[in-house]
């Protein structure tokens, strides 16, 4: 663990991760207060966010208005996948989703300001433009998940039931790692912020559909290379009793925490490397 030092005035200096959390809380609180100034506008944007993010599920409903199953999966089963992915993505989007302003900050030089402040840069950039309206995605994802949990035909065991919150937390961590890695990439690529969307938003869309509808090589890619499959596909296939299209080592359905941990560690390394390679625009 990080050792804490005793400062001259007797107060203990916080360990670095606590310091980061504190900075994150302060900055996020500031953005929340500023958005609450215009209450009506805030309510409208929350509702709007709920509707925009709900479009993905509306698409699924539209599809199921014409068919009874997709790749052999029923509507409640697809809703289960969707609810898990959307809620997990919603959490990471709320916590770190404003990272795409990093590119702008680098271009206009205001990133330099963050570097000289006495708080971890990742916490500052994560909380930058913190937007509570993003609760919209979590809300609608949670609603769909609630429906799926009731409607899906599963013999619930304690293990399967416990997997649901585990998937949400690990899924959020995996998506969060993507956001951080994407931010590191932005330091190098600046204008190319949109590449990140292919993995975050694209990944979220992808995970809303059963793995069997995708090509084997594609599934291999998102299982072993970019392990998005551990957000929901692999553990949810186990919960639903559906065979996974690939042969996986035994216990893979419980591997999400490990995968999430590795992803976060790699993202952390990428972030440090990105930060080291940063050159100011000088403007």
């Amino acid at each position, binding site marked *: 663990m990080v050792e804490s030092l005793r400062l001259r005035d007797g107060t203990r200096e916080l360990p670095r991760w606590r310091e980061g959390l504190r900075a994150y809380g302060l900055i996020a609180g500031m953005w929340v207060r500023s958005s609450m100034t215009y209450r009506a506008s805030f309510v409208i944007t929350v509702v709007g966010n709920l509707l*925009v993010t709900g479009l993905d599920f509306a698409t699924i409903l*539209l599809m199921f208005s014409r068919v009874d199953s997709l790749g052999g999966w029923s509507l409640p089963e697809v809703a289960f996948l969707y609810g898990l992915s959307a809620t997990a993505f919603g959490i990471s989007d709320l916590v770190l989703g404003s990272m795409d302003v990093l590119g702008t900050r680098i271009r206009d030089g205001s990133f330099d300001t963050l570097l000289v402040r006495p708080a971890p840069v990742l916490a500052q950039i994560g909380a930058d433009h913190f937007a509570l309206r993003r609760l919209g995605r979590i809300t609608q994802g949670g609603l769909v998940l609630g429906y799926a949990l009731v409607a899906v035909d599963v013999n619930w065991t304690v293990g399967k039931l416990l997997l649901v919150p585990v998937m949400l937390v690990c899924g959020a961590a995996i998506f969060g790692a993507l956001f951080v890695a994407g931010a590191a990439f932005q330091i190098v690529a600046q204008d190319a912020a949109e590449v990140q969307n*292919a993995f975050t938003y*694209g990944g979220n869309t992808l995970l809303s*559909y059963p793995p069997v509808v995708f090509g084997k090589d594609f599934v291999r890619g998102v299982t072993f290379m970019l392990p998005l499959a551990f957000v929901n596909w692999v553990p949810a296939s186990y919960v639903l009793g559906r065979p996974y299209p690939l042969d996986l080592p035994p216990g893979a359905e419980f591997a999400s925490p490990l995968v999430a941990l590795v992803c976060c560690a790699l993202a952390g390394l990428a972030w440090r490397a990105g930060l080291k390679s940063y050159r100011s625009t000088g403007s």
Partner: protein
Amino acid sequence: MGAGRLYAAVAAGGFRRYATYRAATLAGVFTNTVFGVVLVYTYLALWDERPHLGGYDQAEAVTYVWLGQCLYATLAIQGGGFEKDLMERIRTGDIAVDLYRPADLQLWWLASDFGRAMFQMLGRGVIPFAVGALFFKMALPTDVGSWAALLVALLLAVLVSFGIRFLAALSTFWLLDGTGVNQAMMILGIFCSGMVLPLNAFPGALGEVVRALPWAAQIQLPADVLMGKTDPLHAYAFQAAWAVALLAAGRLLQSVATRRVVVQGG
């Protein structure tokens, strides 16, 4: 300078402005390609379950996906073209300067948006479409006539897309902040233009409604014209009717706004 040359210069400016951000364009190409692949697989599963849904076979459904990815930025389906700039100018009061210019407001922005659309088409739209054609079985016509017919349909689609967003931008004269309108436009654009699912495949009365709305002119009709699913003249008539109606409404709203609304920031 002649009026024609002026607007041509504005359009060229719009083109160049977007062409400046090369990394962003490449990133957009990549993102559209990834989304295209994901959508293709889901569509194939859907059409596998229900062949000939919406009158398309699998190859046609795949073609629809890639045309959609190609037109996504070109027609600013999700918004984010000139209208954000115009809204900002109305909000800050800079619009007063624009109104003093010896150029027509609507034509000026139309020219600029046309330049943007041209670049987005060439720089960002064509590559995902080509990638799609390379890796998936598509139903592409081999005669020049169908492609020429598509070009006309796309031109009309650009006008309709502009018409919708110009109206949205002018609403700022009364609302002062465009956030809510932009959000509504985004939802309507994605859903009603057939970005999520071909409008032909929408069920029942909902299908009837979305196919009659102006957004149908943007992806659905160009796709049908390309694949010979509809009489091109019929499609053009629908697109042109909406284009005229929207542009006329824009002109009317513009004259009301500039006559009766007090400019911000005085």
